[in-house]
């Protein structure tokens, strides 16, 4: 509590005193990680591999195609049973590795790529458009379900058709604060993305086999959290020994 108050006060003071580079000060400190460990694992599905519904597309069919796999479906690998698009992140980390410079969201083949992403507050957010059609990215903070989502970006993207004008948007606002973001395209209502903005870079999204890896983790005990849009959340304590790799595998059950 005291720490949070200090952070808020110092952030506010910093914001008032020096406004530089449009970055947001956070409580996270970048250090050289000594004897870094890692957390790896896979997320598998305990149940019959679900079908992915196909949505019919009736707009920009030349680019989007006439049908598209439902981006909101649970994606499970039929061989490995690995669950894709699971976000894993550490709850609180005060210091550690340097985060990526920027976070990129692409509109490609009328889908958001990636579908689920982590990001670090205070960094630029790049929105690209690889499709030669008008995409209209609408990003909101907060939860759709709890009706607390609030627009933080709503903008039309330039596109390849008029090549000279095309440029990605480098937006300094989307990652202004930490929290969940909900990403939609107002031009293509099926497009859906999710993001979690954290103050530190210790997060990962599972690949098509359900595997993930958190690298350069300072030794210590952490709360590892898991989130999947359809299969819910899980929490686990994980201890990272110096220089070692900790394993944390998860099994997700279908929600009834």
């Amino acid at each position, binding site marked *: 509590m005291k720490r949070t108050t200090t952070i808020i006060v110092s952030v506010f003071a910093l914001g008032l005193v020096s406004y530089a580079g449009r970055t947001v000060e956070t409580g996270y400190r970048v250090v050289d990680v000594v004897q870094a460990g890692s957390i790896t694992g896979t997320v598998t599905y305990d149940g019959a591999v679900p079908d992915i519904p196909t949505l019919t597309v009736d707009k920009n069919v030349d680019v989007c195609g006439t049908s598209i796999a439902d981006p909101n479906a649970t994606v499970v690998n039929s061989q490995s049973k690995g669950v894709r698009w699971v976000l894993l992140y550490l709850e609180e980390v005060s210091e550690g590795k340097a985060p990526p410079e920027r976070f990129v969201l692409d509109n490609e083949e009328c889908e958001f790529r990636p579908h689920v992403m982590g990001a670090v507050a205070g960094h630029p957010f790049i929105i690209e458009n690889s499709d030669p059609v008008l995409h209209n990215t609408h990003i909101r903070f907060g939860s759709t379900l709890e009706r607390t989502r609030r627009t933080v*970006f709503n903008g039309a993207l330039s596109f390849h058709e008029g090549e000279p004008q095309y440029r990605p948007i480098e937006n300094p606002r989307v990652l202004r604060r930490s929290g969940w973001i909900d990403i939609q395209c107002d031009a293509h209502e099926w497009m859906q993305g999710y993001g979690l903005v954290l103050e530190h870079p210790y997060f990962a999204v599972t690949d098509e086999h359900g595997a993930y890896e958190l690298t350069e983790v300072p030794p210590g005990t952490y709360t590892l959290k898991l989130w999947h849009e359809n299969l819910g959340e899980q929490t686990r304590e994980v201890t990272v020994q110096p220089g070692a790799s900790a394993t944390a595998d998860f099994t997700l059950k279908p929600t009834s």
Partner: protein
Amino acid sequence: MDRQRIAWLTLSNAALVVLTTGPALAQMPIEVAAYNDRPPVNEQTIAEGKRIYDLSCVHCHGTAGRGDGPVAYFLNRSFGPHPRNFTDGVFKFRSTYSGDAPTDEDLFRSVTKGIPGFMPGFNGLAPAERWKVIYYIKTFLPEDLLEFEPEVVEIVGEPLPANAASIRRGYEVYQQLNCWECHGPGGQGDGPKAPDLEDDWGFPLPSADLTRPSSFKNGSRPEDIYRTIVTGLDGGAMTSFVDMMRGREEDIWHLVNFVLALSR
């Protein structure tokens, strides 16, 4: 039946109309100097702002700025827009980039002019009083918004002559930017997407009927329409075209001419 009396009443009423509207019909310039006539931001001016807020604003915007005054519940309950909840930090009428706070001048414009159909213009308050109430309203804004200095979207160029060629080009841009999807092929707010539009608060939101410029909530001058196109209306459905149209500002002015032509 008492015809004389009715005739007299009609006449006297008519006379009253003439007598009371003469001066009102004159052009009413509004003080431009008001922008520069700003009191300092301090505890005292914020306290005075609260006094004015409690007099003029609290009935709709609520005691805590959450848009929940006793009157608010009756305003368009089943559809948007509703009185703004300042603590959400989402503002439609900005000159700034999507996601940014409005500038103080933007708030001043909204307080002064009101929002046609929805909010009265509080031009009966002295400019200094309006500034003070804005200082108080800003205390409701979320911190992360306040500490992030808003960046004003530059209005590039000037309105172009509204000739046939410009309007025709504006129509092409209207098609290209998919404006018709919400605003309708004829601009009457009846596009295929219009019935499904929602604001951030989950309320259905009617799409603006561009054939009725008096309903333009963000202003109906060419500059106002340009501003609305480039900044979008955060919290509503209107998207920001500043990034997409960078380098094509002339096309925006053509689009402005087309939009204005819709109501002529």
